[in-house]
């Protein structure tokens, strides 16, 4: 076990010419994964585009069910978590173990704050009768279209939150590996790849925020 790990940590796996080629292979694999994530979320965004084109006015009105303040705070929190993530990668590049773990923990903390605010928003939607299905009690104009909007809201933010929960789990794993001394200035690929994943989750939110929270404010 230790020997197998040591081979990877202190050099490169035997199928690669050198560490750089190994890094580029990992990077390409991660970008391929992210490209299919783009397609995955792209399908959900296309569904949103389809229905918002059919029910433009109702969707703009339904957008006001969401709290702009909480949405904006979460946008700031998530972009800040991307900043702490690049700091963690930066420290990994320069071999700063303690600072790297500190920034990873900061990223996890900000991610948890985001999820906490999201949970608070979800709870409110239950109380306000805005959860699609049997619990939906809103009966104003265009109620079916409002229900459709809330359905898309829960699917899109739910899938996004699921990605964040997975991301926090990966960050926790990185903290343990960093503590055990897996990474050094010449080898920090897992930290860099996790950074790519975390920033991608941030990117999804950058598009979700205006489409869900901002379209009906004027």
């Amino acid at each position: 076990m230790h020997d197998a790990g040591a081979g990877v940590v202190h050099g490169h796996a035997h199928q690669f010419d050198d560490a750089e080629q190994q890094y580029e292979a990992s990077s390409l694999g991660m970008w391929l994964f992210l490209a299919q994530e783009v397609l995955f979320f792209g399908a959900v965004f296309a569904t949103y585009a389809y229905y918002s084109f059919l029910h433009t006015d109702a969707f703009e009105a339904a957008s006001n069910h969401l709290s702009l303040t909480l949405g904006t705070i979460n946008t700031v929190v998530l972009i800040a978590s991307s900043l702490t993530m690049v700091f963690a990668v930066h420290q990994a590049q320069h071999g700063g173990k303690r600072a790297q773990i500190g920034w990873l923990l900061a990223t996890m903390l900000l991610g948890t704050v985001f999820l906490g605010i999201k949970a608070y928003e979800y709870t409110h939607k239950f109380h306000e009768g805005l959860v699609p299905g049997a619990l939906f009690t809103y009966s104003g104009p265009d109620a079916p279209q409002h229900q459709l909007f809330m359905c898309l809201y829960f699917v899109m933010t739910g899938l996004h939150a699921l990605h964040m929960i997975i991301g926090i789990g990966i960050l926790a794993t990185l903290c343990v590996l960093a503590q055990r001394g897996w990474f050094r200035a010449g080898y920090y690929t897992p930290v860099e790849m996790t950074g790519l994943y975390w920033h991608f989750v941030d990117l999804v939110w950058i598009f979700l925020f205006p489409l869900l929270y901002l379209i009906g404010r004027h």
Partner: protein
Amino acid sequence: MSQRAISIRTYLIIFAALMALTAVTVVSAHVDLGRGNVVLALIVAFTKAVLVITYFMHLRYGTLISRGVLVAGVLAVALLMFLTIDDLRTRDTRTYLPFVGALDGVRPPIAPVPPHPPLE
């Protein structure tokens, strides 16, 4: 590693730019620009996305093939979006959409098909 490290200073500048763009998009959402609101919000979102991808995700120093993979993914989604919306825009209510009312106001109604003349 071949990739050059980006300085802390650059990261902070990009973070400040992302915050400023967030402020722009939140403030501009309260001004009534009609359809322009969505267009502006999406332009700001794409700008933020490019900043994150270029600097935070280091694609500025990424390999050509990594960039190609991302572009391929984005183009596939663009194609999906374009064909979906184009289909919706150009549907004929005589052949599709029994729920014609859903498109009321989106485009002018189409006259019903006249009966086919009897065959000889």
